């Protein structure tokens, strides 16, 4: 029982972070229908950047974190401006593969600047584990879930009330009409990339607080694809619902299937979910059924 509760809590908490990273994907997909496959590498590079700021440069937290956010904004702007803007109106194949190229490049940058393969961020959250009934959960999970929820709330307020947020929703709805209304679509695109990079960075920092900075962060990014696929590509609600589901499946499955099947099953459960969803319900739980059925 204690085991079950523990898996459930950690699963939901990790799932919230996945949902946050997936939100970054959905943002870009909604506004510019570009599938960002470099998500994992964005998570990786911003976690390493945080490490560089906090540990290597020994900046205090109040300086290190804003710098990370600034770095993420700059990175998003750079990627959009240099690689995706020249490719506007190209076939979807080029758009997907260019993000693969970006992924490859960022991975090279990470090995270039931070050749060590494993590192740990300094402790950001209090250490002592929390007792929730019979389960013992380390505080990082709870904080990660709380921060993700807070960001989710802030972002939905932004989309609801801020001018740029409304412009982004409108662009997602109808690009031509938005252009006719005088909204600069290109700046909407770069804003969505900046937002995506920022949420990827925050998600990366939260995950690496839990598990340290390793190459596995790329897989974390890839796992959040299963969140987008399950939730539906263009749905923010889908992200927040599907994230905890994936996290739960991963942790419960990892906990109970490992003795049966073998170690490491935890890491491929999200990918198996992708295949299952793809065969039976390709547009996900909340996705718009605009997908071309063949």
């Amino acid at each position, binding site marked *: 029982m204690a085991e079950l509760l523990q898996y459930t809590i950690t699963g939901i908490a990790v799932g919230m972070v996945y949902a946050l990273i997936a939100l970054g994907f959905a943002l870009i*997909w909604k506004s510019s229908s570009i*599938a960002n*496959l470099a998500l994992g590498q964005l998570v990786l590079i911003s976690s390493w950047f945080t490490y560089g700021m906090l540990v290597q440069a020994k900046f205090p937290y109040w300086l290190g974190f804003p710098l990370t956010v600034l770095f993420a904004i700059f990175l998003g702007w750079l990627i959009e401006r240099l*690689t995706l803007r*020249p*490719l506007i109106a*190209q076939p*979807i*194949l*080029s758009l*997907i*593969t*260019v993000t*693969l*190229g*970006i*992924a*490859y*490049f*960022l*991975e*090279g*940058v*990470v*090995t*270039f*600047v*931070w*050749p060590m393969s494993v590192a740990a961020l300094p402790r950001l959250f209090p250490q002592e584990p929390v007792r929730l009934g019979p389960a013992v959960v380390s505080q990082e999970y709870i904080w990660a879930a709380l921060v993700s929820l807070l960001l989710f709330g802030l972002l939905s307020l932004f989309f609801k009330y801020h001018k740029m947020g409304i412009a982004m929703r409108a662009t997602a709805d109808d690009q031509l009409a938005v252009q006719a209304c005088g909204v600069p679509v290109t700046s909407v695109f770069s804003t969505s990339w900046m937002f995506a990079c920022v949420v990827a960075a925050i998600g990366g920092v939260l995950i690496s607080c839990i598990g340290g900075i390793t190459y596995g962060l790329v*897989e974390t990014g*890839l796992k959040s*694809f299963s969140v987008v*696929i399950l939730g539906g*590509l263009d749905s923010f609600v889908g992200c927040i619902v599907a994230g905890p589901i994936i996290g739960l499946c991963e942790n419960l499955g990892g906990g109970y299937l490992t003795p049966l*099947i*073998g*170690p*490491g099953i935890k*890491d*491929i459960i999200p*990918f*198996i979910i*992708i*295949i299952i969803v*793809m*065969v039976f319900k*390709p547009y996900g739980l909340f996705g718009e059924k605009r*997908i*071309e*059925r*063949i």
Partner: protein
Amino acid sequence: MDLPCGTRNFDYTSDTAVLRTKTHWLLLFLLLAFVFTAPLYWSNYWLSIANLIGITIIAITGLNILIGYCGQLSIGHAGFMAVGAYTTAVLTSKLGIPFVASLLCAGLMAGCIGIIFGLPSVRVKGFYLAITTIAAQFIIIWVINHWTSVTGGFVGIKVAPASIAGFTFNSEPRQFYLIMTITALVIFFAKNLARGRVGRAFIAIRDNDLAAEVMGINLTYYKLLAFFIGCFLAGIAGALFAHWSRFLNAEHFTLADSILYIGMVIIGGLGTTIGPIFGAILIRLLQQGIMYISPVLESAFPALPAGFTTGIGPMVFGLVIILFLILEPRGIAHRWTLFKAAYRLWPFSY
């Protein structure tokens, strides 16, 4: 069209011939003569690079059929190669099946796994398919790493060199002949596939699948066929790789490799037979160049960070992929066509 000046076709045979003129035949003969006498004056180092290039050409010819002709993006090609490689490794070393049979089995096995993971392509396309094939890559590699009793798990598995009727391909020159022969056959097959009914159906599906279906092309059949052929060739390439490197573990078939293969196809030129050859040669030579030059640079400039040698490769390849997509999306093959046209029209190129 792309016929040299003054060449005309007077009957159907000459219209459908791959090689149209005597110059074509002469050039082909010279190329084959050059390739097959290469072991006489190339060192083992260059032969091993050439072997790797040959294997890569086979693999990405398959990928090109999948992406370039049929328009189905697959980001799990290294995974399908791994299926072929491990199939032949297990069949030859544990069951003692002869090389030729195990090579075919490797191809068939990879093709069947490809069909399984290609099944979603019947319903979805574009990004959805890309994600499915990424999932395929991870699932395949996970199975290889954890099915220890058969695949050797993380430790890896040793593979005996290939042998046909008692003749063992146990040195670089011998393997060079084996790999080059199969590469030449695969290129010939791909060229004819693309010109025939199947290739035209693939192209129709790539350009507009709804229109293709209206024209009477069975989408399910042809999409799965594309997955089968593409993954079959990946399996063959993986099997040759297994017998060439004689040692396998999952590190040889990572997601990064899959991405690099897509990069090669794009750099070479999607939807052309010659594109994969250009792409494979360019990227593999670039790899060798980087491997050669980065220690030199590192010793010359001690100020470079410690990750320079390992990090510079992915950076350069990523950059090359991005630049080709932005500046020359039709790849080197397009430049090659332009060059041929200019050469034919010279000196009256108006």
